[in-house]
């Protein structure tokens, strides 16, 4: 069953009741002209929002549109710079999560706010214990928890340790936490990002029941399907502003997509057809488990050929980060092998980031602040990261500072990094210039293979074009490029071949020419196989589905 089908069947679940009509005059929530800046970044600008009681109100927007910030303000996690919040028609001063809770607002954060070493019951009680001694209050809390789980069909074992529960159940605990505190307004921030399709189904059933019990729900997501499936009304955010509001039944995915993206010039990248040559890198059935034992890469096989760009599409957190880390030698393999040239890397013959770089593999990491640069370093020091052992920068004992500086200046000229000052602290460059510096460092050596993650995150339009052109140029000169991006647009316009990842697996491998956003979206949500059975507004999968 897909989300669409749940949507159509939701009246059954709710016991024959449809959502209460929007007759009630006072909205459950009304935000008036909310603004919030973080330093120079305007996260929210004069945002208005009305949520009617007993409805599910979707807020949709791209990464960084300001949805999460808005909700954090509503939940008292941040204070707005200006603007008013009305709950059930009454103006509320929400300065902390405590205020929000007492105003009847509950929130399920994207990253769960649970204590892993605690039981379900302890987590639910935390902050709403109802007495200073636990023995007494936990008895009544247990009763209340069981009552709530029954009333809303949210079965969960009160004595289970959170750390041992699957994410779907953890999320259920989050919802119970909110209900336990008497929440009449529930905010869910990207709730399906971490869920399996089955768990998503479950969640939507739960939301439906909650709505039928009169709970007002705000659902933040960037997935159009979910909006269409479950919401009554939808607001669209773009670049920190509220651009539009619609009745869900009066709108369509296409309209919402357009509103979401705005009149953004579609990224048309002019490029010739690829002429792939020999295979430069081959990964065979590689698997990787993280420190918590979670399988992050599950039997992934792919090959990169000279002269092609392979794009990796997927909702972030589905193994793309780990794939880049495994291919670049940062994290170890637990199964399978990677072959680069003559070298075969296996769990028994591990490699290192240093060795792989020496094979001519360059890597632009997804998050430049986390990995790609050191903000406390000068630009010139950032410009040699990973290549700092190179003999051209080093004497027998001392580093050749002059050579490093000259190299950096050269990179800055070639890649138009401004200001052109190798001795400036890298933190003081703008995001776009930082990214260009990182790209310059990695692309300058004409690597045989370039692994590139989110090349244009937080980069202005002009720089995006520049970066895209350079990537194409590299491809045309015979490099193999693996491109990871959460911007589907970017993957579509740059790639020659597109691989879709879901939960650490490859769930789709399509030629870029045959691919379209809808079909990829389905694959990204792992609806590929069932996808053919979905209503007709979904494109039929044309690409080769590997699994």
């Amino acid at each position, binding site marked *: 069953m897909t989300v669409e089908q749940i949507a159509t069947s939701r009246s059954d679940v709710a016991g024959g009741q449809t959502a209460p009509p929007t007759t009630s005059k006072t909205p459950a929530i009304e935000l008036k002209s909310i603004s919030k800046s973080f330093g120079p970044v305007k996260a929210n600008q004069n945002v208005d929002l009305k949520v009617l009681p007993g409805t599910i109100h979707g807020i949709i927007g791209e990464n960084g549109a300001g949805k999460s910030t808005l909700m954090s303000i509503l939940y008292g996690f941040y204070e707005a710079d200006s603007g008013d919040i009305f709950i059930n028609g009454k103006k509320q001063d929400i300065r902390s999560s405590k205020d929000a809770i007492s105003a009847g607002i509950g929130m399920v954060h994207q990253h769960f706010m649970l204590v892993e070493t605690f039981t379900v019951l302890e987590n639910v009680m935390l902050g709403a214990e109802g007495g200073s001694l636990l023995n007494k209050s936990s008895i009544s809390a247990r009763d209340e928890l069981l009552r709530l789980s029954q009333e809303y069909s949210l079965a969960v074992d009160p004595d289970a340790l959170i750390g041992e529960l699957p994410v779907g159940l953890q999320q259920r605990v989050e919802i119970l936490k909110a209900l336990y505190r008497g929440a009449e307004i529930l905010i869910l921030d990207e709730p399906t990002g971490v869920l399996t399709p089955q768990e998503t189904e479950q969640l939507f059933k739960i939301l439906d029941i909650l709505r039928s019990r009169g709970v007002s729900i705000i659902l933040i997501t960037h997935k159009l399907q979910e909006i269409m499936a479950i919401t009554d009304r939808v607001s669209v955010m773009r670049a920190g502003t509220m651009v539009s509001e619609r009745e869900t039944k009066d709108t369509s995915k296409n309209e919402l997509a357009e509103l979401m993206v705005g009149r953004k010039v579609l990224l048309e990248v002019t490029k010739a057809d690829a002429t792939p040559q020999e295979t430069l890198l081959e990964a065979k059935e590689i698997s990787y488990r993280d420190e918590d034992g979670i399988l992050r890469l599950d039997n992934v096989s792919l090959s990169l050929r000279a002269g092609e760009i392979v794009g990796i599409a997927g909702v972030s957190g589905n193994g793309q980060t780990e794939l880049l880390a495994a291919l670049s030698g940062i994290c170890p393999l637990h199964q399978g092998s990677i072959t680069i040239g003559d070298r075969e890397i296996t769990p028994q013959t591990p490699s290192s980031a240093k060795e*792989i770089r020496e094979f001519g593999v360059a890597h632009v*990491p997804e998050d430049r602040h986390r990995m790609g640069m050191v903000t406390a370093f000068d630009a010139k020091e950032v410009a040699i*990261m990973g290549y700092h052992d190179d003999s051209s*920068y080093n004497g027998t004992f001392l580093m050749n500072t002059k050579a490093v500086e000259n190299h950096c200046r050269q990179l800055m000229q070639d890649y138009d990094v401004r200001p052109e000052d190798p001795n400036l602290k890298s*933190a003081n460059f703008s995001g776009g210039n930082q990214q260009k510096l990182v790209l310059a460092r990695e692309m300058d050596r004409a690597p045989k293979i370039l692994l590139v993650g989110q090349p244009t995150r937080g980069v202005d339009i002009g720089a995006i074009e520049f970066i895209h052109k350079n990537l194409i140029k590299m491809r045309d000169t015979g490099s193999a490029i693996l491109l990871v991006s959460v911007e589907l647009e970017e993957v579509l316009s740059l790639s020659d071949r597109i691989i879709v990842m879901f939960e650490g697996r490859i769930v789709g491998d399509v030629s870029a020419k045959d691919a379209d956003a809808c079909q990829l979206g389905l694959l990204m949500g792992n609806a590929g196989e069932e996808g053919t059975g979905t209503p007709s507004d979904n494109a039929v999968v044309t690409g080769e589905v590997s699994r």
Partner: protein
Amino acid sequence: MSSPNKTLPGWIDIGLIPLINIALAFLVSGFVIWLIGEDPIEAVKIMINGAFGYDEALGYTLYYTTNFIFTGLAVAVAFHASLFNIGGEGQAYIGGLGVGLLCLLLDQYVPLWVILPLAIIASGLFGAAWAYVPAYLQAYRGSHIVITTIMFNFIAAALMNYLLVNVLIARGSGSPESRVFEETAWLPFMHEIFAWFGAEITRSPLNLSIVLAGFASIFVWFFIWHTRWGYAIRMLGHNENAAQYSGIDTKRVIIGTMCLSGALASFVGINEIMGVHHRILLEFTAGYGFTGIAVSLMGRNHPVGIIIASLLFGALYQGGAELAFEIPTIQKEMITTIQGLVILFCGALAFMIRPTLERIFSNFTQENKTAVVE
């Protein structure tokens, strides 16, 4: 995350704020002196005179300074890799053992110029070895280096106690000390060196080690900022993910950095054992390892800052001794108090005044702007 760096100009961050923090530490110290019924101003006068007023005093001041440069550099090098080495005390203690053993072994056979380089090596090896274990445990077993280095200080103390009481004790001696080395294993005092050139200065414990301290500072400066190893250390300290990304073997860097740190701390042994006491004895480290933490924090982990801070603490130690003589109510523990306050204000509360300064600064710049508009 980088935004707070931009709100204030660099000279406030690396110049004004540390100065205010130091000033606060001394202000509170003055308050303590006033509290016990003495005159802080008078105390400062005595201390300055006691530390710099005559050449013997200066000698003592510089002798203490030598120790603090070693331990300060040791802490700083580890700090650059974001490692907190509280074990300088133990590393210095064991380093001294290395120096002493070497001198006991060779002093009857070879001249100083053979012993000295070997002693430096022995000292460094022993100190590095004592730092190696906590470093290894941090790198490969994930044990917290702060706790293990604290534990190793105590273990070092117990070990030295055992060795001196049971093994190294000089025959027929009543106190737990080794025999005195032959003079061939004595580092020349500075007053002796000056005498070779015909200059006469008063006797003091100041010896050739201060030259070693100077070299060590220069070495650390080059090593941290001008070699690929220092580059790796700093990168690890700032951003471990970036270090892994850059192909740096973080485990090896952790171990290497700690060994260097331990070796630097161990040179206290050269100054104390070869330079002053000429025998192995109990507790010759006298808390210098801990003072190194204050020195490093105050000197902002930079050799130049460390030399200045060491000089200050050297003056405090020597001036403090003078003060204890002049005003019996103020003993050397007052200096310990000042040291604690410096660690508090320059370390733990380093960012306390920052928000206030930010406010003042932004008001100031705004006023300037409006002034221009008007």
